[in-house]
């Protein structure tokens, strides 16, 4: 049974349909890529899935539940987390606090015990800090836990954003151009990391990416979007040889390969 099933998803901004008749199905444990030229509507799809935008038409079934119309925080609480194309960290907070905020939905102590320092406050805070440092360790950021997020180098900010999304304990992780701005070496490391976290945390991952080596190397299935419509769907091999994709997007790169 599919973890995520999207049917006839359509989003119209004024007279422009950014996404039209978008269908996608993700099964537990899959690592799927979403590619397409600039302005094809990839990020709009993410915004629709996470509730930032409300779809004009169509249904989104997540874990057998219709999530259309839910607020972003309600969707996150149901097990979906994401990163952003233009990094959105809590930039004036420490690296550690960025990750600790992601635990918010799992904290049980209430307002009274927070203010009066009663009950589970100390225990839960300590537990949260310990787990957050564990996550930072996975992403090789634990030594920088007290740094202010905005002072991190670009690549580390990207990694921190993924760590933060993972800390929310999602079942489905949406990555919006995780390798943007990284050099080939960093991209290669990131690719291995993404595969590793998928297995380690039993995640399903949907990622948007422009870096073809990452998409082709990591994803099992790929959807290709152009002008808000899916023009192709298949394994990396099928996509590489699909004439419509070559025409729309991969053109030169595949022709030379």
């Amino acid at each position, binding site marked *: 049974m599919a973890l995520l099933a999207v049917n006839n998803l359509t989003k119209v901004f004024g007279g422009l349909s950014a996404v039209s008749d978008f269908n996608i199905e993700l099964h537990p444990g899959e690592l799927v890529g979403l590619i397409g030229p600039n302005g094809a509507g990839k990020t709009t799809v993410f915004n629709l899935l996470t509730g930032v935008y409300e779809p004009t038409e169509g249904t989104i079934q997540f874990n057998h539940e219709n999530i259309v119309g839910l607020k972003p*925080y309600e969707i996150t609480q149901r097990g979906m987390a994401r990163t952003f194309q233009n990094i959105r960290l*809590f930039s*004036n907070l420490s690296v550690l606090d960025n990750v600790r905020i992601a635990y918010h939905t799992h904290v049980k102590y209430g307002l009274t015990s927070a203010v009066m320092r009663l009950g589970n406050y100390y225990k839960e805070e300590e537990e949260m800090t310990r787990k957050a440092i564990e996550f930072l360790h996975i992403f090789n950021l634990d030594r920088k836990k007290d740094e202010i997020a905005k002072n991190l180098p670009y690549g580390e900010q990207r990694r921190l954003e993924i760590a933060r999304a993972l800390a929310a304990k999602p079942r489905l992780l949406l990555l919006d151009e995780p390798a943007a701005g990284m050099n080939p070496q960093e991209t290669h490391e990131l690719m291995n990391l993404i595969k590793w976290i998928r297995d380690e945390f039993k995640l399903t991952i949907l990622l948007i990416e422009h870096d073809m080596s990452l998409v082709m190397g990591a994803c099992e299935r790929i959807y290709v979007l152009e002008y808000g419509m899916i023009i192709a769907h298949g394994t990396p091999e099928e996509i590489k040889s699909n004439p419509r994709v070559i025409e729309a997007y991969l053109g030169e790169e595949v022709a030379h390969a």
Partner: protein
Amino acid sequence: MQKILNKRIILTILVLGLLYGSIQNLIVQGKLNPYYEINLLLIGINIMMAVSLNLINGFTGQFSIGHAGFMAVGAYTSAVLTVKLQQPFPLAILAGSLAAALIGFLIGLPTLRLKGDYLAIATLGFGEIIKVVFVNIEYVGGASGLSGIPHITTWNWVFFLTAFTVVFIKNFINSTHGRACISIREDEIAAETMGINTTKYKVMAFTIGAFFAGAAGALYAHYFYIIQPNTFNFLKSIDYLVMVVLGGMGSITGSVLAATALTIISALLQRFAEIRMVIYALLLIVIMLFRPQGLMGNKEFSLSILERLGRGEKHGSVSSK
């Protein structure tokens, strides 16, 4: 971890106790003349106002400029209870605070959907509406105000409620609920996608801020015998905003410092009432030019600095958190 925290708590209690004891001693011995006492109490009330406003403006990032309105609600509600209904003072303070919190909640629910300048204008409007409502209620004296309020507020009341306000808000900020508020200031969309109900936390910060403004209003009313709607006008809100900005948006100790400093400065300038606002404005311009993040930025002054100094370490003038 637990050990360090306990040591901090003990140190904090020690410092607060020393401060309380020494001033209490001066009052009991009659060495503190009434002029100083008034200003001492005003410092406490202003700290309550500045710290509670900082929770809304500095930590949650929701720019509110109608804080004096909540103070008015607290002042009038408590005064009506003691003057008209002969209720005890503690109950009046509690009722005043709760009434202010309720109004904060009701105002926050629709207005916190607005952002930035729009929210500022809306809160400004609500602050003025509250004032106008009191002007038009004959029961509480209309424009000439409510007089004959018993003089019950003492140094003790002010000290303990101020300490309570500061500790409450500090503990709130250092919890997952406080971090949720701060994350809204940092990036509302990211906060929402990290599972934080941003509307809930914005309204929560607004309500808590209004609650303590109400308490400050109740203390104010029962010290000065009379309250008038005009006391709680737009300029009063600006006074508190100046304290928050001067001290640093997102620094509790900064607000305490700025509230104390500005209360003293405005007491010293009392003889030059006309130029007080000019000097205030100049002060603000100078601060914004040379230290736009405020005196403390978003850092806190903590006792661990003294500890470090004691051990002879030279780095770190202020420690974060």
